[in-house]
């Protein structure tokens, strides 16, 4: 009976209640997954094939050809479809290479922080007691630190570079993974199938990796997508502030920083990398949203 009742009862909490609006709602959600996936896949392909797709060398300076406007301006030309920057470098090529930096940093940061956060969270949730107290202490400490300020300070100490930024953000952004992994594991710790595995004498790594992890993976994947977007934005922020990826690397944040002097006269210098950033982050969030719907209870049907 509980099973039969759970779905309708849950449904009554939904604000959108008519049959039609629910249908629209769910297709929209599925569509968000599709759109997000589509944009990210194409950007991924762009990043991989950058050397072949970029029309020019992104580092090649040509002072004779500075600040060429993009194609939609009357003075634009097809040689530089998105124009050139203040050093005469092709803007489209820099944008294409910038995709690599953003995606690389986003993915690697999510990987590092995911590894740290999930490990800490699962251990805290599974063992509880002292382990939990230690992890909770670490978590509170971490949450008390403003990410941008700490990253700025550390980067200025160690010198900004792509590697520093990646490591710094990886070491800073594990909090959400830890929180989600901890609470999800706590719920599973007393699940009878985990107890059954314990009673069989299964080694601890087996229980954590095979019994617990697959059942919290859905929640973690959602966190991971959000953290990728978060890392990409933070990288852009740090690069903009001069403590991230260093010139002449074509980071989108750096491109915005370099263009800020021309902002009022040649706004495209900023809007082009800005829009790229916007589209990528939006796509990742759409993907995360769609994944959350898929992994929500009830939507999962094996």
């Amino acid at each position: 009976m509980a099973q039969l009742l759970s779905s309708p009862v849950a449904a009554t909490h939904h604000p959108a209640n008519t049959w039609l609006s629910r249908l629209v709602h769910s297709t929209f959600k599925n569509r968000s997954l599709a759109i997000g996936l589509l944009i990210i896949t194409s950007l991924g392909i762009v990043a991989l094939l950058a050397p072949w797709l970029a029309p020019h060398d992104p580092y090649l300076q040509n002072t004779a050809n500075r600040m060429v406007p993009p194609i939609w301006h009357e003075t634009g030309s097809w040689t530089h479809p998105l124009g050139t920057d203040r050093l005469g470098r092709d803007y489209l090529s820099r944008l294409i290479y910038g995709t690599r930096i953003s995606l690389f940093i986003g993915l690697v940061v999510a990987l590092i922080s995911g590894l740290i956060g999930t490990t800490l969270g699962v251990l805290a949730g599974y063992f509880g007691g002292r382990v939990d107290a230690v992890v909770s202490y670490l978590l509170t400490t971490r949450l008390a630190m403003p990410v941008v300020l700490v990253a700025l300070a550390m980067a200025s100490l160690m010198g900004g570079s792509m590697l520093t930024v990646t490591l710094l953000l990886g070491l800073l952004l594990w909090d959400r993974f830890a929180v989600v992994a901890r609470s999800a594991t706590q719920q599973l710790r007393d699940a009878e199938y985990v107890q059954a595995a314990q009673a069989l004498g299964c080694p601890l790594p087996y229980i954590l990796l095979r019994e617990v992890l697959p059942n919290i993976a859905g929640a973690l994947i959602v966190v991971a997508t959000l953290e990728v977007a978060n890392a990409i934005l933070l990288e852009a922020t740090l690069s903009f502030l001069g403590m991230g990826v260093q010139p002449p690397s074509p980071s989108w944040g750096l491109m915005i920083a370099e263009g800020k002097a021309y902002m009022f006269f040649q706004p495209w210098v900023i809007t082009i990398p800005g829009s790229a950033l916007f589209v990528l982050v939006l796509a990742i969030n759409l993907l995360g949203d769609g994944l959350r719907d898929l992994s929500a209870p009830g939507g999962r049907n094996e």
Partner: protein
Amino acid sequence: MNNLSSTERSTAPASPLLSVKQLRVDLPVAKGTLHAVRGIDFHVERGEMLCLVGESGCGKSMTSLALMGLLPRKAQVNADCLNFDGVDLLTVPERERSNLRGARMAMIFQEPMTALNPAYTLGNQLCEALRRHQQVSRKAAHDRALYLLKRVGISAAEERMRQYPHQLSGGLRQRVMIAMALMCEPDLIIADEPTTALDVTIQAQILHLLRDLQQEFGTAVIFITHDLGVVARIADRVAVMYAGEVIETASAQALFQAPSHPYTQGLLRCIPTPGKTLPGSRLQAIPGVVPNLVEKVDGCAFCNRCDQAAELCRTTPPLQTVADGHLSRCHFAHQLSNPAQLNAQEVTL
């Protein structure tokens, strides 16, 4: 909706308090439509205890939610007749319906914690239940709450009124729920598995209390349960549900002594009964599983699990009158209930 009119109504001559004809509940689910309740008929007399009994998924809780008007909006409720004391529940406006709820029909849930608001004191919630429906003073509501708490066997009632739900044990919470259901002196209480989550000693106490109060206040009760032991002890009449249908209705006495549907017989045979089943012997289980109610069910819903199924059972059996007030939805109901068969039953029952 005040006390006077309800007593007046209950002395009015005998039409049943609630009559249900061909009630159907359909729920859209991922793979189609779940026909949770497939055309059931029953009625509740004033002041009687009707037990709806059946296994998970048989539609008994859906039925109760449909009566209370608490089904999710996506659920479709159809019926030829859904009449509560002269009010047509199918066409009554939502506003009037929510006035009926609480004032004249109350519900007791399996898990009282979900029905009690953890943010308010018990006294507050009890008084609110009354003052929402009746123009009474704060003092009068308080007095009635206090009286009912004492009546349901809660000691230090004055103190309990100031406590919050989480400060009470499960048994006490269920007592409070009963008191709350009685606040407006409803004509009908629907109790959905109210003792399933409780320990056996507490269950006995709560059932005892419920039976007492029901007789004292003359309230009709629809008691939903899966436990045949509970049914036997408290019911005046019983409706057995299977796969969204009522397959047998009878007085408690008649149902347990002369069950005339193979499913009822099977249910009675498969529970170990002290003194009647030999300890350690094999129980007579009902083979197979309940049909999937998303698909269309042809003929008798029980025929794939029935040891007496025949070719005839591929057609839908009509509700047959076996004895006065004893109906069974089986083609062979008359044979099953005849005395010669009955003797054979008694050995195992």
